[in-house]
């Protein structure tokens, strides 16, 4: 190596930090731009799907019995007589300020409704996710480590049931056995109606709110009611996560570095948890994030069976009632959840997987 080479190398080392910052800035800009384009696309999609659906928001407000004159007046009042592009523009501008208008089904601003129903779903989905991930990952690893043994078969059967049993049926069965039969859990509903007005919502997550208020009687009631729907949702999530974990782990087991580790005398536990498992962590994050996103969308059937006033039910009711403001607002929120979780996954990938840098 010549002296000039060394000098050049030193110079490039000195300028390296500024080059990296530029790259980071470009990356951030690119990400922000891609998020903005996605959101705009989402807005356009939700808006035009809303207009294409054969639902009549005017009738939803006026009722089936209204006269044609009243109908025509409402069309003008809702701005539905304006050109489509103008309606879309208004929609985009309002949506960007989180103003989705008033819900026809609740008479309140859609944003207020979403803020009321979303915590119910967030709480349910989070408890379900903790249970689903906490059980699904170890089961998947154990199944992979004991491939084709009875343990693997048991996990497979459990997962298959979780995949295929209709959640509606599981919910009713669970209620019949654990609520009506054994009395182990609370009935349908998020909280005993007589407690509801004793509890001041701070976060909207009743487990946390009741704990913060030191109302352990309410906490016990809320817990007894969330445990069954969350377990049923968790079962489905667990089935998916355990199957994916198993397949990721089996892929790792066939890699040469595992063979090398075994040749060097690494124990079975070391090989699984210290060598193979860290390598599937990044892939697992995507699986878990996607499962979480699906749960956050709201599990309509579970929420219906358990009279859970959550996001999924709100969206479905809005759709059936032709409450387009609510439908568009909710769809946008679902889109944002996916975008956020995808973004977080991306960041996580970049941080932990050198190949993506």
């Amino acid at each position, binding site marked *: 190596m010549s002296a000039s080479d060394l000098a050049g190398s030193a110079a490039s080392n000195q300028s390296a930090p500024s080059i990296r910052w530029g790259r980071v800035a470009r990356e951030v800009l690119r990400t922000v731009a891609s998020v903005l384009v996605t959101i705009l696309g989402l807005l356009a999609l939700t808006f035009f799907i809303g207009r294409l659906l054969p*639902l009549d928001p005017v009738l939803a407000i006026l009722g089936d019995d209204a006269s044609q004159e*009243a109908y025509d007046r409402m069309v003008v009042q809702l701005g539905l007589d304006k050109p489509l592009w103008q309606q879309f523009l208004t929609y985009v501008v309002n949506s960007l300020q989180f103003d989705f208008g008033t819900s026809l*089904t609740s008479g309140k601003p859609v944003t207020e409704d979403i803020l009321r129903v979303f915590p119910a779903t967030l709480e349910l989905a989070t408890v379900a996710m903790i249970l689903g991930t906490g059980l699904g990952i170890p089961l998947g690893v154990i199944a992979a480590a004991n491939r084709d043994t009875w343990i693997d078969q048991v996990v497979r059967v459990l997962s298959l049931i979780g995949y295929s049993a209709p959640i509606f049926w599981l919910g009713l069965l669970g209620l019949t056995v654990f609520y009506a039969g054994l009395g182990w859990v609370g009935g*349908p509903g998020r909280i005993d109606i007589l407690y509801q007005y004793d509890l001041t919502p701070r976060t909207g997550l009743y487990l946390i709110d009741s704990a913060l208020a030191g109302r352990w009687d309410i906490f016990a009631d809320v817990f007894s009611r969330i445990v069954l729907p969350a377990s049923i949702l968790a079962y489905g999530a667990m089935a998916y996560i355990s199957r994916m974990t198993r397949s990721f782990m089996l892929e790792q087991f066939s890699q040469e570095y595992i063979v090398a580790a075994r040749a060097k005398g690494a124990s079975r536990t070391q090989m699984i948890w210290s060598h193979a498992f860290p390598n599937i962590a990044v892939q697992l994050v995507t699986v878990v994030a996607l499962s979480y996103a699906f749960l956050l969308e709201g599990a309509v059937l579970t929420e219906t069976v358990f009279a859970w006033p959550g996001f999924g039910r709100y969206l479905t009711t809005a759709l059936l009632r032709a409450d387009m403001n609510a439908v568009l607002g909710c769809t946008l929120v679902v889109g944002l959840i996916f975008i956020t979780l995808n973004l977080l996954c991306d960041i996580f990938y970049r941080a932990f997987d050198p190949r993506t840098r």
Partner: protein
Amino acid sequence: MKKHANFLRCVAAAVALGAVPALAETPADTLLMARNIDAISTFDPAQIGEVVTNEMIQNICDSLVSIDPEDEASVVPAMAKDWTVSDDGLKITFNLVEGATFPSGNPVTAKDVVWSMQRVLKLGFGNAATLTEYGFSEETAETDFVALDDYTFEMNLSRPYPIALILQAVASNRVANVLDSEFLKGEEVDGDYANKYLTTNSACVGPFALRQWNAGEVVILEANENYYGPAPKLKRIIIRHVAEAQAQRLLLEQGDIDVARDLGAEDLRDLKENPDLEVVSTPLHQLYYMGFDSAKPEFADDRVRLAFKYLVDYDALADTVMAFLGVPRASVVPLGALGALDEEEGQPFSLDLDKAKELLTEAGYGDGFSARLFVGTLPYVAPIAQHVQENAAKVGIDLQIEQMANAQLFSAFRGRDFDTIMLSWQTSVPHAHGMLSRHAVNPDNSDEAGLTMFPTWRASWYNEDFNKRVDEALFEKDEAKQIEMYKQLQLDHMMHGPFAYMFQLLDTAVLGSSVTTWKWNAFRVYYADIEKG
């Protein structure tokens, strides 16, 4: 193995710790009712069109007069303590109760009645039809409803309509619920007559007041301590949203609710056997029927529409999917209404495929045809539609069922964009005119007329003779003769009308043992009279 046993012990301990026994009974001063309340979209009396909200608002906002709890065909005083009718039958003068006050502290006066009734016409929601049907209009509202002084209200009619009918319409519909005009004028936005405010609030006098409504979650009503009438027996009525019938049943069986309102035929049959529960029913003035688009050549022929009435096994459906939910009825006028045909005369049809085939052949459709059948989402709808589809196929008619959300169904019906359709229609008066005025009368069948409030117009069915006869019957002073006219109208409508009526619907509830008094009829549930033991 020992490791597994320890794990199981841990799980058992965790489950035991999490176990919380269900509440055994509801509070004595509160009625807890489970109901699907998804349909609620507003508490503005002028706008309410749903059965669920109608039931609540009748207990929140008193009207001028009320349907008698002991006899649904009679009207009793409410905000009006009495009334007189002018000799020419064109003027009703109401004397209002004195001393009633709104929650704001404002006294209830005749000006409030005027404002409340005029706003119904000016807002023009579906309910306005109750008034326009009897000649009141937005243009004449100022002279139709007049406050003579603070406690005297005058209603001016354009024709000598039967007074009983007008009072019934006012009592059971939401057109004369007296609102606090003084207070609500301060809540107006862009001349909306406080419609936005009343969506989620109440400003009126009734035995109960709306304390809270969380859409898709709960409605809480609290007893009005300053009520001018007899005090309600209970302090609170909580209507909890439970959409799933099975969940309602479990809650009721566990004693966690007092009343379940949306149970299906199978559950009701089971619960009837439970000695701790009581299944109660009341016939509604609501008919479930099949409509045909008479603008389509095949349905323009009376005989084709008539043939469909022979494609239904009414009794079999009544014993199965419609058990506790409906009774067979082919007449356009529901049982219980003035002038209604009796049970037997009102339902002369039965499943008769040969007769249906014969009628179709006579009409020139012996080889059948195909048509779409639009239906909604109520639980009993699909089985009935499939039943009709199967029988129709046997006489060569290919019906393609399309199930859709109610909003979409109404839209298709109003837009005259259907072949055949199944849905229900409810009238708010126990009088033959209530149904005939919409199901037999069509003032103008042209597309331009856009008379969407008339199901006859939606079905493109027009018959000058019916228009005339319904009007004549309405103004017939001799009641015996009038009833005879209504009976003949029903018989003729059965043979030539645009619709095939199948069931008169029932409202059925299951009461827990805690409920000792439950009072209702076709038009009202009297929350103030409900008692718990």
